[in-house]
């Protein structure tokens, strides 16, 4: 065992460089208009279409230490909140450059760490003023999403309006936008995938998966078509301070971030859950909570997008061969059994160790007529017949042979069922989950499940894998399934990811009972607040600095004030970069520079006003009062606001900065357990050996 060691912080910090180059990949993933990317493995010629940070990192080769740390941070954010990962990735990149700039100016590392993390604390405290409380949202449940469908999506980003672009020409019908953007993508996918593959497989010597920035996937004509979904400012109430949100539809639209079709599904799911809960507790109405764990997705690739819908109950796809069986089961309630684990002959519960040295000898006189598999299958069938069970839900795998046999005897077995679904059926039907079929007794059997086709004409909805969707329902079950369809198999994953990201956004908004004014407003406030802090500390007006050094008595404590404005300035640059990329990705600016100039203009105004937060709120108000084109004033009533979720967003910032600062403070990389063969190649990279 040999250990290699290298100093990664000599002149330019290698770790930071690596980190910012990884983060660079994710530039196009922030904002509502995301450019998809193809990742192609040059060895296996497999390709993946991705449009989210998590999927991007999943498919990249991140074996370097820094790459792994980045992946770890993104995964942690994703596992906890399911949202905010693109923000995280982008800010990692932006703040990496900020930190590098500080290093160029010889700012001591400890000071960068302290000032930056304190600066972010200031920002997190400041943006509280842009929180919008959510009140009694379920008192207005008579509104439906249909209202939304007729409203226009003239979400003029505030920057757009001020640059004197007419509002009217951007008005597009919501449905058009959604479907158009989709068809564009689909067409592009079909037309270009082949050529893309051909052109990119030329070089096969490299082992790593290579990321291709594909021009074809830059949204076609999106500047004209779908650019306005992320408004920077929207109309508000007359009093700029009294923003509140008490309408579910409004909230959902605000949180859709350009993905109205998926958000509509989520909103419907909430409605269904609300109605279920309402029916259950007529007498004692406990406050309703949106329970995301009771929402499921069923993906049916190959079906048109318009088939996507929300169904109360459990929808799952089964093989076409069971069509006749389902037709027969359709008309009466059936009895069910729930099996956790596999339903195969050789399955034993987890943790059971089979002895390998046991041999069964058969009586030589009696020859075995059936194989043991057949014996087992028959015994299972016997149990099902005995308890008159027609439906079996299995958490694990199911023996093929058994499934076939059961189809003949009019019994349906469904495998790979989610544990929460099992639990929901257990609660609703009184069934008790068992591991082995031999455990089944009368108390374990559930009652009253209805099996139907998802669509009345099942053969119209056979998906690409020759499966048909069926619906399992029972009295009082609180499951809701989102059936997601997409004509392009490659996009199924994206569709599902986007649905969940909408669902989690709405979930956190309802859970926290507050949202941020969105569309860049919070980031803009951070930027302008930091700007003010920089000016204050340059003028030394703010002596009560709360910057905290771990090493309180170090000389750094007294030199802190000298470096503070510089570091805060660079931290602010990170926000500036984020905003200009967001606006460049979203609105019709030809360059990031132009977008950046525009932000600068507003930044000046905001800081001059003395209170950036009221400046932002006032700008919202101005739009509402029809300061711009008078002809559009009545239409503006319907402009939905854009919202953002609170804690996941702030946590994403914190995680991004933590990662950058962690890498910044790292000065050496130690690789342990190298074999002798690897040593020579490592020696050239500046490693020392111990």
């Amino acid at each position, binding site marked *: 065992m040999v250990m290699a060691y290298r100093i990664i912080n000599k002149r330019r910090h290698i770790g930071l460089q690596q980190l910012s180059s990884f983060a660079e990949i994710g530039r196009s993933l922030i904002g509502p208009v995301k450019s998809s990317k193809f990742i192609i493995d040059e060895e296996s010629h497999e390709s993946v279409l991705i449009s989210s940070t998590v999927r991007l990192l999943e498919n990249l080769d991140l074996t370097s230490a820094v790459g*792994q740390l980045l992946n*770890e941070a993104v995964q942690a954010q994703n596992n906890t909140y399911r949202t905010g990962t693109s923000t995280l990735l982008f800010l990692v990149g932006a703040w990496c450059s900020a930190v590098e700039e500080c290093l160029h100016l010889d700012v001591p590392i400890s000071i960068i760490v302290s000032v930056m993390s304190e600066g972010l604390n200031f920002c997190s405290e400041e943006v509280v003023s842009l929180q919008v409380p959510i009140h009694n949202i379920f008192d207005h449940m008579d509104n439906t999403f249909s209202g939304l469908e007729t409203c226009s999506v003239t979400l003029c980003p505030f920057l757009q309006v001020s640059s004197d672009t007419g509002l009217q020409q951007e008005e597009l019908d919501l449905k058009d936008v959604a479907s158009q953007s989709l068809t564009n993508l689909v067409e592009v996918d079909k037309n270009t995938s082949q050529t893309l593959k051909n052109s990119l497989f030329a070089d096969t010597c490299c082992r790593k998966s290579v990321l291709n920035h594909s021009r074809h996937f830059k949204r076609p004509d999106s500047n004209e078509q779908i650019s306005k979904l992320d408004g920077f400012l929207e109309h508000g109430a007359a009093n700029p301070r009294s923003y509140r949100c008490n309408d579910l539809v409004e909230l959902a639209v605000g949180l859709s971030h350009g993905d109205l079709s998926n958000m509509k599904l989520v909103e419907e799911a909430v409605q269904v859950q609300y109605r279920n809960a309402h029916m259950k507790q007529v007498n004692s109405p406990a406050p309703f909570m949106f329970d995301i764990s009771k929402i499921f997705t069923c993906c049916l690739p190959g079906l048109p997008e318009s088939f996507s819908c929300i169904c109360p109950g459990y929808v799952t796809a089964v093989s076409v061969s069971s069509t006749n069986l389902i037709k027969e089961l359709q008309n009466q309630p059936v009895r069910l059994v729930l099996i956790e684990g596999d339903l195969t002959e050789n399955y034993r519960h987890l943790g059971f160790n089979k002895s390998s040295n046991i041999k069964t000898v058969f009586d030589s006189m009696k020859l075995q007529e059936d194989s043991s598999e057949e014996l087992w299958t028959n015994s299972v069938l016997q149990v099902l017949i005995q308890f008159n069970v027609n439906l079996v839900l299995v958490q694990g795998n199911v023996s093929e042979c058994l499934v076939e046999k059961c189809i003949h005897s009019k019994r349906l077995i469904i495998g790979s069922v989610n544990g929460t679904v099992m639990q929901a059926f257990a609660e609703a039907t009184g069934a008790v989950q068992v591991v082995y079929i031999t455990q089944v007794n009368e108390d374990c059997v559930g009652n009253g499940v209805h099996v139907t086709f998802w669509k009345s004409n099942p053969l119209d909805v056979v998906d690409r894998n020759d499966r048909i969707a069926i619906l399992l329902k029972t009295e009082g079950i609180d499951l809701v399934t989102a059936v997601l369809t997409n004509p392009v198999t490659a996009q199924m994953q994206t569709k599902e990811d986007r649905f969940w990201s909408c669902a989690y956004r709405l979930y956190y908004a309802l859970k926290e009972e507050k949202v941020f004014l969105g569309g860049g407003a919070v980031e803009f406030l951070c930027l302008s607040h930091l700007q003010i802090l920089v000016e204050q500390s340059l003028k030394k007006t703010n002596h009560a600095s709360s910057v905290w050094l771990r090493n309180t008595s170090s000389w750094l404590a007294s030199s802190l004030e000298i470096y503070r404005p510089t570091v805060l300035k660079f931290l602010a640059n990170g926000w500036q970069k984020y905003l200009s990329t967001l606006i460049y990705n979203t609105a019709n600016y030809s360059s990031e520079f132009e977008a950046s100039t525009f932000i600068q203009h507003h930044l000046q105004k905001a800081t001059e006003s003395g209170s950036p937060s009221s400046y932002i709120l006032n700008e919202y108000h101005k739009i509402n009062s029809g300061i711009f084109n008078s002809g559009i004033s009545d239409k503006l009533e319907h402009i939905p606001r854009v919202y953002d979720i609170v804690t996941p967003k702030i946590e994403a910032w914190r995680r991004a900065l933590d990662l950058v600062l*962690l890498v910044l403070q790292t000065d050496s990389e130690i690789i342990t357990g190298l074999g002798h063969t690897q040593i020579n190649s490592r020696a050239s990279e500046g490693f020392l050996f111990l």
Partner: protein
Amino acid sequence: MTSNEKKNNGPQNKSCLCKLTLEMSRLEAKKPSLCNSEPLTSEGVRATLSVWRGIVSSCYGPSGRLKQLHNGLGGYVCTTSQSAALLRNLSVTHPIIKILVTSVQNHVSCFSDCGLFTAILCCNLIENVQKIVLTPTTVIKLNKHLLRLCTNYLNSEACGCRIPVDFHSARIPLCLVRSVLTSKPASMLTKEEVDHISALILRTFLLTIPENAEGHIILGKSIIVPLKGQRVTDSTVLPGILIEMPEVQLMKLLPIKKSGALKVALFCTTLSGDLSDTGKGTVVVPCGVSLESAVLDQLLNLGRQLVSDHVDLVLCQKVMHPSLKQLLSAHQVIAIDRIGVTLMEPLSKVTGTQPIGSLGSISTSSYGSVKNLRTAKFGSKHFFHLIPNEGTICSLLLCNRNDTAWDELKLTCQTALHVLQLTVKEPWVLLGGGCTETHLAAYIRHKTCNEPESILKDDAGCTQTELHLVAEAFCRALESLAVSLEHDGGEILTDMKYGHFWSVQAHSPSAVNWSDLLSRCGCGLYNSQEELSWSFLRSTRHPFAPQTCLPREAVGSSSTLTVDCLTAKLGGLQVAVETANLILDLSYVIEDKN
């Protein structure tokens, strides 16, 4: 080789060749052992030692730099600056470094804290001594004298750098915990988070102290429960034991119908229905006999006994057979399996049960009880919460944003808890932030100058000149240890009254009024507005007597102090000097090259 084999062609021939080479290697003569005399004089060893010193000293202190440890093959990346994590992952080859690493690891396993202190001091001592032309025997002897001088001083009432700890007030214990937390930057805590975690650690520690203690106090145990991905400020501590469980499994056990005290049985054997180990050979079973069902019958009998004994809660370290669980739940007995080995000892302690290790009949004395059983949800995790009748076991739910930072925080918390335990035994803390080291160096210099005979006592073998040389090397080692706290290019000063540690920006104008530039000393006890005089630590100074006997009122006034655990630091000092002596004493390294 037989003729038969010769006729063979292709692959078989190859295998034949292999056999031959194998045989040949067996015949090879043994390599002679390699013997290096005076290993420390070799250039290679010195270079390795200096790289090693570079690694450990760059990690030292609150602004220490972090190290990324990984295997280069996509394995887990550990970012750390703690000796415990660093040494665990390092693999060193040279015997001298191995001795060093092993002694530091031993120290860390006994005291948790001051590992880097030990490692750096040991390296410094070796390096400094090499520059003096004295025989190792003399150096070793004198080092021992100096070590005795230090330990006597640090343990004496006259010591000017230690503070008594009064556990009636939380102030000094909190300072101690905070010092441990801030000296590990890789846990990425902000000020608020440090405050939150220090308070939490102190609370956790207090929960492990028995309420009515008479005579010997036996401290309880705190179990750290991971809750990764959450905010640090979501961390909390609960009395009792938390057993993690997937939500679906938890829902199956609910609702808990029992209230009040529950009778508990705890199994440390598997109840999964495995056949016990049948040993080598094959067991032949006639058709129609199922061993599996025989074992299951035995399990079900056991289950019936538990039911008839009115047990309410069955806990099993390993897996329980689903049929046994079904039987138990049919009789309203709560069964929880796969608890894991780490919880077994605390569970047995809290419930007063004897872990049951066989499937035979159970003696009723094995059963224990808990006061209550609840479910709890933290973040996305679900837990069973066992509340004991009385007890000193608590669960610290520790959160941090990601794995790397969590691991570092966990280690830090364990260190802090351990340090508190050590401080209860020996209720003193030393001033931190480098002040103890510089103060101690000043004290040694003063002693060797003015009372050399008191150090040498009746040791006739050493002259006073030799003592001066070795003492200077010893003091320099302590001082450069203190200097290792500075990583941003500042300079270190010491005052001529207390001998404390002060840092200042590099290249400060020389003819300057120091009291304007400096703010506080390293430990935070003194500020620069007192009438003090300073000089650079690196420059040569006249020995002076640092003020001894720390007055109580001096400690009371300053708000936040950086302090270190006395026991751990004394231990570290001893290990460092003794290891350095051991390494200096090496005259041959004999390696078996076979």
